[in-house]
């Protein structure tokens, strides 16, 4: 279980996250939503230790992460960043093997356990046939799956995803999120995910946290948080929300579209 407790983050004087607290249970997906600049990415970066925390703490299963070394932390938290063109000449398998960094010896040599973890991660993300391909020659959706496989290879109880569906088309968005949801259930991972598309959130997330100006405004199930009055105020855009005819999940529209 991932626990964020009174977390405050500031860049020099400017407070970007103020007193955030919530929990993500194992097997659960919590989606972070909010307008641009609300602090979603900062929250993920603070949890991984890339951004210094001013007050509060992040813990997993009762263990405080604050004083852990990067390697110790990377055995507990794995991150799926937004796909970027870096390390393009490495093969998919080499890139996924780098997720084993916190387990490798000082020479960076991989053992049987590392190879097995990489094989499993490639299998879970349906990338076995891509193992020898160069990352740079893959499509955006495939590259994002490589980053997910790399994070899975870290064998952590907690998975953080920073807007993983950016630049993906509808098919790849749903494929990736279904994959994450299945893995969360199967491997009992606690998943924290920043996501822009609110309809995807209401379909895939178990819980939703709405951030505005660095503060946690609402926390609850998609039905509880994705409500027209909350979203309209947070995004300063009038919206309407109707329930899905079958599942009841909230579906969101910019206001005016339903009238036409």
């Amino acid at each position, binding site marked *: 279980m991932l626990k964020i407790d009174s977390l405050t983050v500031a860049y020099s004087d400017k407070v970007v996250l103020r007193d955030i607290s919530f929990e993500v249970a194992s097997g659960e997906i919590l989606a972070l939503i909010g307008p641009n600049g609300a602090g979603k990415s900062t929250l993920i970066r603070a949890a991984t230790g890339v951004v210094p925390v001013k007050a509060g703490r992040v813990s997993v299963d009762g263990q405080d992460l604050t004083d852990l070394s990067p390697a110790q932390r990377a*055995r507990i938290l794995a991150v799926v960043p937004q796909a970027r063109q870096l390390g393009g000449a*490495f093969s998919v398998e080499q890139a996924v093997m780098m997720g084993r960094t916190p387990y490798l010896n000082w020479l960076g040599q991989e053992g049987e356990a590392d190879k097995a973890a990489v094989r499993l991660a490639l299998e879970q993300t349906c990338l076995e046939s891509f193992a020898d391909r160069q990352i740079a020659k893959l499509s955006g959706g495939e590259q994002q799956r490589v980053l997910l496989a790399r994070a899975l290879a870290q064998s952590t109880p907690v998975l953080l995803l920073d807007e993983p569906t950016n630049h993906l088309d509808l098919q790849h968005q749903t494929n990736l999120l279904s994959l994450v949801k299945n893995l969360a259930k199967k491997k009992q991972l606690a998943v924290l995910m920043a996501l822009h598309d609110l309809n995807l959130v209401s379909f895939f997330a178990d819980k939703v946290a709405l951030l505005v100006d660095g503060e946690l405004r609402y926390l609850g199930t998609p039905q509880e948080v994705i409500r027209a009055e909350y979203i309209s105020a947070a995004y300063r855009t009038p919206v309407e929300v109707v329930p899905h005819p079958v599942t009841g999940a909230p579906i969101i529209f910019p206001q005016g579209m339903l009238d036409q």
Partner: protein
Amino acid sequence: MIRHRPYLLNTILLLGAFIFSVALGAVFIPPETVIRILASRLAWLHVNPDWPASFSAIILAVRLPHTVLVVLTGAALGSSGAAYQGLFRNPLADPYLIGVASGAGLGAVFSMALNWPTNLLGFYLVPAGAFVGAILTVVLVYNLARVDGLVPLTTLILAGVAIGAFASALTSFLMLRTELQLHRAISFLLGGSPIAGWEPVIAALPYMLAGMGLLSVSGHMLNVLQFGEEEARQMGLNVDRAKVFIIVVASLTTAVAVAFSGVIGFVGLIVPHVIRIVWGPDYRRLIPLSILAGGSALLLADMLARILMAPSTLPVGIVTAMAGAPFFLWILRRAKREVFW
């Protein structure tokens, strides 16, 4: 077997170049005689000495130490070039282009101005001066070139060229204002090893072996750094420690090469690229292979330097620059089309 093939191939190339380098000179000594003379020095081998005594004197006192120093220098430049390229995530980072070699040259000449190496202490002062010059330059260039935590190609080259030019200007000034032996200092700066015999080899060897050994174990750090510093940290790398480690070791290795063989450009650029194109981007083998291939490449350049204007010898830095500049342009063209980086 397939995993070891690149090492085997590069070792054979290096050994071949080594034997030829020792064979080559005013008096050509046949390669098989070279091998027999070298073998005769091994205690457990009994070789019948059927060659003129002058041959073994030439080889053991002159050509062998020269060749060993060239191999060490090339190996040091090749491996530190690979490390800089990985650290800056930039295909054009080479000890020469980013100004580190010029900074080391300034440091070396500065310490020569204090104490021209006439004794063994002098040998150790020059590399120390070169090391300080190299570290100061790399830190300065890195901070000047950095934009939002990345080191883009354009700013890196601009900062490197500017700082390198400044260091070269200071070096020239220093050479004019102090009572250095000008000819020796100039040929030193062009890469024409001014010091002969075993002394520089013995002085350089510990630094070189330590530097290259430590670079060889930094392969995995460099691999992970290719994904950016933030992701590297999230994958469990202690990024700050890794960066300092690689900068210090690569600069030490470059500095020793410069201190004993002068400022030699392009070896650190070309060698890692050729290795990367042929055997892929994994730094865990890119660095050891750059050590082997760097030695062969500089030996080849050194042999050309000795042959082209025989009986006089060109500074090897001129040969590497002549071969390296066109290669540099080729990389620029290729980088637009293909992913090998």
